[in-house]
């Protein structure tokens, strides 16, 4: 090649990499982040308000971690006694534990200390309340079905740990109210048969109150349970990401896809924004509403008590059970079994939690449903499941109210003893009534849906037939809405095959199967199924026939006039 034909090469223009790009490259060279990130940056999340309830719990947990660490910088978890010389006048010179004294110090001598304490406590309340509400949503919509049963169990465990964490947390200041709660916990421990007094002495390091319980609760509250919570929340999120979020049925949504908005930017903005909203609301509550004013309770003293001694609301179910239980106790061969404490305090919560955890498996066994479900159930389309939760909510609500019976008495001028008697009956009578009412309501809503699908919506135009009967003109509903109403599974009642085979050998597990079949029938009883294509066509042809009957009318009105999309000016039917 001659020198002349070689093009003069221009110096290569290298684009200077942006700073972010440079940093990202540095990280990726070491961590291989891009492979993981590529799928998740535009990950799709379905958008519905009821999917954000778990986020309230998640963000509350973050707030608890942040405010909790702040508090640990001043709090001393020791029951060693000191004489208070801080700013709160009414307790100056009183001997109290260091835990209580440092709580007072945080409240009165650290700027922002009281605010952080209050945000921490309000956030704990919201954390557990949000878990309840989230669990209820998951339950109502059947989101715990395969493949998410394990996530439900993880969630149930998170709830239980959250409640324990809250109890440990509000007991740390060693004030009169929470000390009374610890005393009750001690009584619960002592009521355990055989090992009760040992459990009590081991937990408290000796006789109640001892000086070990606050430091031990501190370790539980600051290290053990938060560690477990973090791990389980991580697992919970991991499963959520792997399974992808469920979604409501509707146009364009199937069992095989997820429709929604991408993580970046929309979901990140909404979820991130919601974090700030949760934090902001909690901070405003900490600013405006007093919670746990420990300086008014005074330090714990076993001979002092306040009226209106209740634990925080999430222990209210156990408290209500304790209050309404009659005083049954038996002595056997020199040993005491305190049914009045052991049953409501230890056995009943155990049964409740076990039932809650096992529920997805119980329902799967009854319905025999082994399919994967990614589309949610409308609550009305699973009447028995919905009714079951409403009955459980009724039970819980009554027990919560029973836990506050003395406050109900004083706020509403009621007789304390009558409230207790009422609750003793209501906890047995109320839930079945709620169950029945809810199930019938769901079924009637299903009938309403069926009417809408088959016959359309009511237009408000009343026609009179030649024979003199009246009917209302209906128009078909929007196809998207119609699809939404019919996008559900057909229920299949579990059938038992023949009991014995040709040789007369009884099938194994046949008694269990009979029970299962009966439960399955009960489960799906009276459920209104979605109409078949044939039924839908019949419905439409019926409507067409009706319209044809009125073709000769002087004022034909097929109903479209008043569907909001037609001009009705000069319409004779609407004379003023």
């Amino acid at each position, binding site marked *: 090649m001659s020198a002349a034909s070689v093009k003069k090469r221009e110096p290569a223009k290298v684009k200077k990499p942006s700073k972010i790009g440079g940093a990202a490259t540095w990280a990726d060279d070491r961590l291989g982040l891009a492979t993981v990130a590529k799928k998740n940056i535009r990950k799709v999340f379905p*958008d*519905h*308000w009821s999917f*954000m309830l778990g*986020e*309230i719990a998640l963000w509350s947990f973050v707030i608890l971690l942040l405010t909790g660490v702040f508090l640990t910088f001043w709090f001393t978890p020791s029951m060693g006694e000191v004489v208070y010389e801080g700013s709160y*006048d*009414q*307790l*100056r010179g*009183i001997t109290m534990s260091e835990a209580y004294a440092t709580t007072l110090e945080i*409240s009165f001598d650290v700027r922002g200390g*009281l605010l952080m304490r*209050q945000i921490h406590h*309000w956030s704990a*309340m*919201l954390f557990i*309340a*949000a878990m309840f509400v989230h669990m209820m949503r998951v339950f109502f919509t059947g989101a715990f079905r395969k493949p998410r049963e394990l996530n439900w169990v993880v969630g149930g465990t998170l709830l239980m740990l959250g409640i324990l964490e809250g109890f440990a947390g509000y007991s740390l200041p060693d004030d009169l*109210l929470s000390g009374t709660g610890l005393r009750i916990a001690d009584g619960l421990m002592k009521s355990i048969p055989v090992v009760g007094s040992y459990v009590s002495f081991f937990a408290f390091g000796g006789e109640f109150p001892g000086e070990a319980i606050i430091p031990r609760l501190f370790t539980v509250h600051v290290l053990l349970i938060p560690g477990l919570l973090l791990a389980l929340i991580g697992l919970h999120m991991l499963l959520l990401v792997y399974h992808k979020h469920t979604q409501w049925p509707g146009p364009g949504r199937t069992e095989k896809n997820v429709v929604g908005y991408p993580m970046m930017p929309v979901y990140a903005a909404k979820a991130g*924004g*919601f974090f700030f*909203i949760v934090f902001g*609301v909690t901070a405003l*509550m*900490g*600013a*405006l*509403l*007093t*919670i*746990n*004013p420990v300086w*008014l*309770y*005074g330090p714990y003293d076993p*001979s*002092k008590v*306040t*009226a*209106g*001694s*209740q*634990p*925080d*609301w*999430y222990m*209210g179910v156990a408290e209500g059970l304790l209050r309404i239980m009659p005083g049954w106790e038996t002595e056997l061969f020199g040993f005491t079994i305190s049914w009045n404490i052991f049953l409501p305090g230890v056995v009943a919560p155990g049964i409740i939690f076990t039932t809650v955890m096992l529920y997805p498996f119980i329902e799967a066994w009854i319905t025999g449903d082994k399919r994967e479900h990614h589309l949610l159930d409308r609550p009305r389309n699973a009447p028995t499941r919905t009714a079951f939760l409403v009955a459980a909510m009724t039970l819980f609500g009554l027990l919560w109210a029973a*836990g*506050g*019976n*003395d*406050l109900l*008495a*004083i*706020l509403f*001028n009621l*007789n*304390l*003893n009558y409230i207790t008697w009422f609750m003793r009956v209501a906890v047995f009578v109320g839930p079945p009534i709620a169950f029945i009412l809810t199930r019938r309501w769901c079924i009637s809503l299903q009938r309403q849906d069926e009417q809408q699908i088959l016959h359309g919506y009511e237009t408000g135009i009343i026609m009179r037939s030649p024979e003199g009967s009246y009917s209302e003109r209906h128009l078909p509903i929007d196809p998207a809405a119609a699809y939404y109403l019919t996008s559900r599974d057909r229920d299949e009642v579990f059938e038992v095959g023949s009991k014995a085979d040709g040789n007369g050998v009884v099938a194994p597990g046949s008694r269990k199967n009979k029970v299962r079949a009966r439960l399955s029938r009960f489960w799906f009883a009276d459920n209104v199924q979605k109409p078949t294509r044939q039924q839908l066509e019949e419905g439409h042809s019926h409507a067409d026939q009706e319209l044809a009957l009125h073709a000769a009318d002087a004022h034909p009105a097929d109903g479209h006039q008043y569907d909001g999309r037609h001009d009705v000016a000069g319409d004779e039917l609407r004379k003023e």
Partner: protein
Amino acid sequence: MRKLSARLSARLSAGRRRRVAGLVVVASALLLTGGTYAVLSPATAQDDLAADAALVDRGRELFLVGCSSCHGKNAEGIMTSDGTQYGPSLVGVGAAAVDFQVGTGRMPLAQPGVQAPKKDALYTPEETRALAAYVASLGPGPAIPEETKYDLEEVDEEGIVRGGQFFLTNCTACHNFAGAGGALPEGKYAPSLSGVAPKAMYEAMLTGPQQMPVFSDQVITPEDKENVIAYVKSLEEEPSYGGFALGSYGPVAEGMFAWLLGIGALVGFAVWIGANSVRSKKGTKA
């Protein structure tokens, strides 16, 4: 006198016998006994109230009109035919009890019931005093405390702290840690202490109105009673450090607010976040 040996008494009285000596001995003995009794017995310094005959008469007139229908014409109490009490006997309840019950409007009861609620006083302060004088004249009982006992002027910080300890031991079980009140069995209640006058608090402790137990001056001294009142008043006067007190009812109220305000607001925000944005009617962008 018999206890002294004959020789001793003879020696003592030998050099001093005057005619009035005996009288002086008796008089001083009486004074000593009476004075000791007056100091050590329950305060009946009401003697001056009951001693005012005109006041007692006025009180009796008012009593016959407004109180005797339940308490009996001579305040002896009325029992119903099945043995329950209509109005208790007022003999020995003392002027302090009347001053409390009538002064806070609890008496006269508007209707029979398990509890006499506080309401607007029906009688003027002078009439109340007259009623108190009449009841005090029926028998010795706790007197209306002097103002120095509840004016809180001499209570220092140490007194308030001590009063707080007494309050937490004796009072909070019924009246709650902030004096917001509490429930008793069968529809009764311990009322809120908010805004209650120091004198009424003192008298309540002293006389034990209705179901409230008595806290006699020998067990909880007048000074300690004043300390308790000072503590309660200090709670009223101190700022609500953390924000609105939500009634000072404890965790039940807090839980209710957490659900109603907290979860309510946050679910509301969630609904807003998930809601579809307003759609334009104008069609797609060109």
